């Protein structure tokens, strides 16, 4: 069986998991910890097929489906190393951190030589705020594979975080011996030197990080600080500007937003007081000088909806969506509006766009 279009994968995989689970329970008298090497799922899919599908879903960013697929793979072949690591990564992406920890802890106890799984466990432990435990796992990984780039870098990073600066220096330098152009290793080395008060060394390491990765926000930010402490004011100012230019919104965008926001305070106050007509007048005044500013059309559309001006709202919201395709709010409002107008197809389309835009990626501002 080959997996067809991505939209149908989810259902097929669920069926696969159900049948695989059956194999492992009363249906087959199996045990969850017993291998099924070479076994195929009842549907005829092989472990390779399922893993291929899991990886494809993962690459698409569909971590829920990838998780289901990896679980299916493990149902076919428990302890499959690639599936274990893939599933653990999906758990992390899907914020199932404890579940990942539980699975990986059990797995590395049974398979102490699997460096990839141990490295992932260390990453999970960092997510749990358990840095000392992560360091233990990383040392074990290095015992198996002393030249592991990831193990060396991660141990250097964790050692820096836990104030073990000597260890950090050793493993970050080892990382750079293995890969001299590793920007994160140069960066973390720079932070370590800063913590030790070695500002000239910090500047050198951070300059190297920015040379390798000119868009490294943290490296520019810290290079400015290290240079200031080293008394190199020209460099500090230059790096400050580089950081300023690349952090947050673009300067022009920020200035525009600030200007519109400052001018729309009166409208916001009217909205707070349920004075929609007055708010609309205020917003429309702003359009004269900001006729290409998407959020303004969204604000106007919202107020027009409050005033029952549906056709006008439709136009405003469409304009907002056209001007800034990343803005999710107009699509939600349009979806509702189309539904009211009886256009179910358009409503569904807008809702789908809204849902896609609203998906919060892992780690977005810590949510």
């Amino acid at each position: 069986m080959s997996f067809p279009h991505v939209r149908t994968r989810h259902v097929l995989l669920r069926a696969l998991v159900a049948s695989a689970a059956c194999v492992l329970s009363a249906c087959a008298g199996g045990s969850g910890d017993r291998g099924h090497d070479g076994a195929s799922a009842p549907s005829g899919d092989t472990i390779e097929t399922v893993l291929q599908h899991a990886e494809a879903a993962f690459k698409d960013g569909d971590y829920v489906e990838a998780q289901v697929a990896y679980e299916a793979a493990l149902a076919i072949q428990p302890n499959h190393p690639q599936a274990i690591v893939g599933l653990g990564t999906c758990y992390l992406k899907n914020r199932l951190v404890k579940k990942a920890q539980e699975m990986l802890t059990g797995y590395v106890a049974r398979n102490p030589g699997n460096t990839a799984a141990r490295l992932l466990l260390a990453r999970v432990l960092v997510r749990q705020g358990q840095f000392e435990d992560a360091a233990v796992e990383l040392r074990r990984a290095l015992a198996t594979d002393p030249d592991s780039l990831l193990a060396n870098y991660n141990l250097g990073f964790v050692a820096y975080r836990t104030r073990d600066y000597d260890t950090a220096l050793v493993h970050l330098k080892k990382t750079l011996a293995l890969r001299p152009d590793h920007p994160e290793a140069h960066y973390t080395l720079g932070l370590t030197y800063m913590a030790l008060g070695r500002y000239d060394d910090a500047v050198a390491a951070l300059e190297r990080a920015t040379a390798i990765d000119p868009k490294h926000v943290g490296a520019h930010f810290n290079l400015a600080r290290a240079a200031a402490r080293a008394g190199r004011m020209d460099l500090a100012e230059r790096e400050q500007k580089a950081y300023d230019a690349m952090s947050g919104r673009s300067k022009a965008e920020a200035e525009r937003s600030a200007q519109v926001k400052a001018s729309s305070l009166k409208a916001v106050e009217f909205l707070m007081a349920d004075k929609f007509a007055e708010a609309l007048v205020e917003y429309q005044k702003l359009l004269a000088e900001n006729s290409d500013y998407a959020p303004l059309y969204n604000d106007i559309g919202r107020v027009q909806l409050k005033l029952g001006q549906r056709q006008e709202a439709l136009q405003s919201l469409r304009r907002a969506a056209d001007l800034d395709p990343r803005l999710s709010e107009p699509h939600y409002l349009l979806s509702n509006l189309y539904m009211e107008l009886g256009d179910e197809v358009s409503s569904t389309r807008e809702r789908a766009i809204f849902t896609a835009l609203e998906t919060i990626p892992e780690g977005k501002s810590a949510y």
Partner: protein
Amino acid sequence: MRATKTATAATLAIAMAAAAIVSAALAAPPPPATPANAAAAAATTVRYTAVTKAAGIDFTHRHGGTGRKYYVESSAAGVCWLDYDGDGWQDLYYVQSGPLPGTPRPPDLTFSKLYRNRRDGTFEDVTARAGVANAAGYGSGCGVADYDNDGDDDLYVTNFGPSLLYRNNGDGTFTDVTEAAGVRNGLYAACAGWADYDLDGRPDLYVSNYVDFTMNDQKYCGDLRAGRRSYCHPDAYEGLPDVLYHNEGNGRFKEVSRAAGIWDPLGKTFGVVWLDFDRDGDDDLYVANDVTPNRLYRNDGNGKFTDITLVAGVCCSEDGRPQSGMGVDAGDYDNDGWQDLIVTNLSNEPAELYRNLAGKGPFATVSYPAGLAEPGLLQTKWGVAFYDFDNDADLDVLMTNGHPMDDIEQVSDNILYAQKPSLFENDGKGFFREIGARAGDYFLRTDVGRGLAVADYDNDGDIDFTVNANGRPATLLRNDGGSAAGHWITLRLAGTRVNRSALGTMVTVTAGGRRQVREVRASSSFMSQNDMRLHFGLGAATRVDQIEVRWPGREARIERTGPVPADQFLTIREGSGIVERRAPGR
């Protein structure tokens, strides 16, 4: 970054030039901090006992949630200590939020409450008599100062919508003077910070505004496919400019935000703290922003401020990324005489500790090396206080925790909605160890903590605290054992030429060979305010060798007194020295 708030090249040059004076002290790394020396200092005998009911506190916060997940529900509310009747005992004001504007009023409606301290460990609800219920507002926070210099504490209450200024009439009642004073604000306000920034002897008012959410701008956030509606991420709304009101001295205030150089229309500000970080005699301003960069405004001494955030390195995480700034406090945790900063953030972000490197060059971000980061990584931290809970002559850290999303457990298996509070003990060498589990049952329970304020409400020489939790009963925690663990002294400062509340006054206490510096300030934490008296733990020292008071002003005016015995409350009046001494419990 925005041009309006970015330091100019000239400013940068000046600030950087200061950084050029990098001394040996600056070149030194942060204080040695190892778990080993932390463990040696860790055994505390102090316990906190929840005495809420016994003390007569029956306040329950209500966010007014209807299930539609209006954004404003998830953040509030604050709590303030004040001495509204001037009897030397701290009274308590809890801010109420719900019901939401435009929603039906429940039959058991309750408002904000003022509790008078009966001086016997209990409080009485005097809200109705005092007239400070804030009945029409959806409350966020509060701030206290004697803005009219008539000798009593006045109260500003921030709301989602028009905020309120209550002038203390001096007879146990207050009058709403908002309109006459011109401090209505009208936006979604969070914190209120009082300070006399222009040193004219009159406290001015800074009001932080959060985002442009209105009840008529409710967005859908969450998972449409699963039908799970959640509170929105702050990215869903735009920020708002904060407001600086200059006290004109005639009962009126003038909005001077732009003229003063404090203008960030996109900032999503929660926490506010005034501090004299450069020790030049006037208060500078630091604000904690949610998902936008925090800001440090240096007071230029001419009624204007310069945004030196980037130069000072206090905008963001160690990696230069804005975080979810909630609460904030300032204090000299390493006893080097310079005010440091702490900012609370969301889960998966550390509470950031910014160490002031003697006013020279950028602050150092030391959250991880100081031990404050890891133990709280999974917690969303709000209220925060630097204070010495065990009287061992260094500042410890207390935080309230709880996630803003009440359905977070549906989307994450390692982050809880209700979370345990955190108490970090300072080992005296710059390292903190989380010791809540040994400091009383309250620290073993989960809560949805928001507002936090500390005070010695029973005047026994150690610091108690209270928490206003989102949608839950408030808790009052009594410190048992703090005054036995170490000696102490508590100072009330009273200005005569400077503002009566003495805001901005720096006090250095020398005892047992150690020097500690504290500043009199109003707002801090999250939407809250601490006891404005200065409490110093003295450890084993039974006397204070010297008290040095630097009254606010560009030209240093210093008064010294001492030695004085430890374990007492002193009132020091500008120009008159010690004018009142009180024993504990009096």
